[in-house]
């Protein structure tokens, strides 16, 4: 029998440190599969964030350069401007990209930097222990929103991808999810399209991926995926937010 599914070539043999049922490692795998399929393992440079995915460089068998919290887009900009023929991606969580690094992200998108951003939205600060994220839903519990996020105190969850779509330099932005096989398969397609957008030199591309955090949501992995399906996608609808790939 032939192996039809296994560890992608662009992933190291390391065991993931993520919690049971975490979406990060699924997303890592999808990125690695896309790298393999596009044959760009020797051309790609990744920029991992601070946060749960800070150790992403232990899993990807590609060149990786760490960015300070929130500065992924700026570090990726530097790498890409220096090496325009390489593929550069930043991997960023919601706190990283939509709170502390909002400015860097919006301006990179607006300049049309030829980078791809993988934006993992799990609505919580995982690594620091479950505090409110900019994307935490109204009413959703976190360690800094006991009793749930309150509008009058905490404001609205931020629609960063929609904001980035307004930027003239962004070309392809899609929100996907990894809560079911169907959505995982689609997410991979979106990542592939985002990388291709960069390879073709069209502009800034980003895939926002709704991802479960069973530990901090205090749910079983299965319940966490159900929560995405029943609740989160109502607040963060899955859709192509911007696609000008065909128009360019």
């Amino acid at each position, binding site marked *: *029998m*032939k*192996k*039809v*599914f*296994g*560890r992608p070539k662009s*992933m190291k043999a390391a*065991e*993931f440190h*993520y*919690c*049971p*049922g*975490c*979406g*990060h*490692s*699924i997303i890592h*795998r999808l990125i690695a599969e896309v790298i393999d399929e596009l044959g760009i393992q020797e051309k790609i440079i990744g920029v991992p964030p601070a946060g749960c995915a800070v150790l992403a460089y232990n899993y990807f068998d590609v060149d990786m350069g760490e960015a300070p919290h929130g500065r992924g887009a700026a570090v990726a900009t530097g790498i890409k401007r220096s090496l325009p023929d390489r593929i550069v991606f930043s991997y960023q969580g919601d706190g990283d990209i939509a709170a502390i690094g909002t400015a860097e992200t919006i301006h990179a998108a607006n300049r049309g930097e030829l980078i791809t951003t993988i934006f993992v939205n799990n609505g919580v600060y995982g690594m620091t222990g479950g505090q409110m994220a900019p994307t935490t839903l109204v009413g959703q519990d976190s360690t800094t929103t006991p009793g749930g996020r309150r509008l009058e105190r905490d404001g609205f969850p931020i629609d960063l991808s929609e904001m980035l779509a307004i930027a003239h330099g962004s070309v392809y932005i899609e929100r996907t999810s990894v809560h*079911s*096989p169907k959505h*995982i*398969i689609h997410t991979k397609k979106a990542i592939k399209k985002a990388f291709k957008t960069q390879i073709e030199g069209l502009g800034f591309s980003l895939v926002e991926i709704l991802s479960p955090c*069973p530990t901090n949501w205090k749910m*079983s*992995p*299965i319940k966490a*995926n159900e929560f995405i399906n029943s609740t989160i996608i109502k607040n963060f609808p899955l859709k192509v937010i911007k696609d000008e790939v065909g128009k360019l």
Partner: protein
Amino acid sequence: MADKLTKASIRINTELCKGCYLCKATCPENLIFVSGKLNSKGYYPANYSEEELDIEKHACKGCALCAIVCPDLAIEVYRG
């Protein structure tokens, strides 16, 4: 005998498994079960074994959904 009947199979690296059981919930053929034996991490890993199942009724089709949802790259899928 088993080779003849099985068109596909999976292999779970139970040492990588953290017991989220997303694979078990996803398998359309209900071929994945929870092992009664702890792995070295301390989880009861998901497992798949042709001997413990009625292959005639529940043969793995190699759909790979289990592997697709596995966050820990613990599942390999074979066909052919």
